């Protein structure tokens, strides 16, 4: 088995970027945008991840998955650190990630709002939503909160199927 020093940063990154998100396994951590950096030094590998939401319960699992996969690849000393800034934005989900979401029936997020003062929205948030099953834009949001912190519940009024939408933040 190769030692940490004989492996490169690129090799470590290649392993880390393929680790799947525990709650949306069609996405890798890199596609979700939570994998912030991978560095290799004499002591081992340091991977930085950022939470999607403050209360994201998947952080420990992400860390364990990263450590395990990198150890399997021969990196003996793996440390995972949390990077809180800049705060994760749904804009960081890659194009490939957005396609993967849509292929799995989850509507990808639109662009996050601009920085600056946050406006109150008393009417339903306008979104360019398309049903991931039938492609219709006759959709409505059932609830801004869903089964995971990052998703809203929606339904298609054409095909009548419910679907989830990754929220813009």
């Amino acid at each position: 088995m190769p030692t940490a020093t004989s492996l490169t940063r690129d090799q470590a990154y290649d392993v880390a970027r393929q680790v799947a998100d525990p709650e949306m396994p069609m996405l890798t951590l890199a596609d979700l945008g939570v994998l912030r950096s991978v560095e290799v030094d004499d002591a081992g590998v340091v991977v930085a991840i950022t939470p999607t939401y403050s209360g994201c319960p998947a952080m420990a699992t992400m860390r364990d998955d990263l450590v395990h996969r990198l150890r399997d690849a021969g990196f003996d000393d793996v440390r995972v650190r949390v990077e809180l800034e800049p705060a994760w934005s749904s804009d960081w989900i890659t194009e490939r990630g957005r396609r993967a979401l849509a292929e799995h029936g989850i509507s990808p997020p639109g662009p996050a709002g601009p920085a600056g003062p946050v406006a109150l929205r008393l009417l339903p948030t306008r979104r360019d939503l398309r049903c991931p099953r039938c492609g219709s834009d006759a959709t409505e949001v059932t609830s801004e909160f869903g089964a995971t912190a990052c998703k809203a519940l929606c339904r298609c009024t054409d095909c009548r199927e419910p679907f989830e939408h990754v929220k813009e933040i």
Partner: protein
Amino acid sequence: MTEDPHSPHGAHAPSHAAPDPNAAEGSIFDGLLGGDTSQWAFGTDFEDPLAGVDTTVPDGVDAHDLAVYCLMLADDALVASQRLSEWCSRAPDLEEDIALANVALDLLGQARLLLARAAAADASVVPVLPEGSPVPPEDALAFFREAGDFRNVRLAEVPNGDFAHTVVRLLLLSCARLAVMERLAGSRDRVLAAVAAKAVKELAYHRDFAGRWFLTLAQGTEESRRRLLTALDQLWPLHDELFGSHAVERAVADAGVGGDPAEVAPEADVVLEQVLAMSGVERPDRQALAGVSGRTGRDGLHTEALGLMLAEMQVVARAHPSGRW
């Protein structure tokens, strides 16, 4: 209590044998594991929520003041989160049940980071636990402080009423907290700035949720409007306390690290006024609830309800200060 549902190595005998992922005949969980036995370890360990984050206290701010300020922000979120969690499985419908749980989770996440930040700024605020206790500092702060050590505003702690009561409370709290967090995103303390930048995004969803329900209930049926107005009337005396600035809040604000709630009151009020106007609701003509000798929630002066709530929230952790979960 030392067993973990995810761990096959619990010290106590589980109700059924944990599946052995290495068993020759395989197990029903093989598909879930994908042959990756490392998954059996997840959930068995604590992680430091600020692992690798630079928690150096910025120049020019008193470390103890910073810690106490973080407790104020954390306790508002923690106590509000606990009250929202009491709705789990009891909300008017499934969507609202899920929504309230999501809001509670966001606030709990903010509380955890802020409690960890408080402990990292000044360890003297953390209750002392028995030698060898594995309880991390943020949990020690959440589960081993007395009510008198909590620094939350009293609005967060009063017992839940009906759904309208929860909507009004969440609206008042999230209008104020969002305004404070917008200010804090520019804090000289990197941890607070980072926590606040994320909190702003989350609170925007909470405020919209509460504002939309406020409008819906106000313009709904006679009964929904009656309940909404009753809740607003009940909670209004606790509203002012959100914007009373405590000496610690002023000190950290002056140091460029905190946000003085009195300064953001006008911004928060503009938003609240929007909701009230759209809903056709007048501000209640009610006096603010006084403190005792000038002391309010920020000083650790609370209503009886907080002690009762904490008794339930803390009982298991306190029974096992050396427990491994």
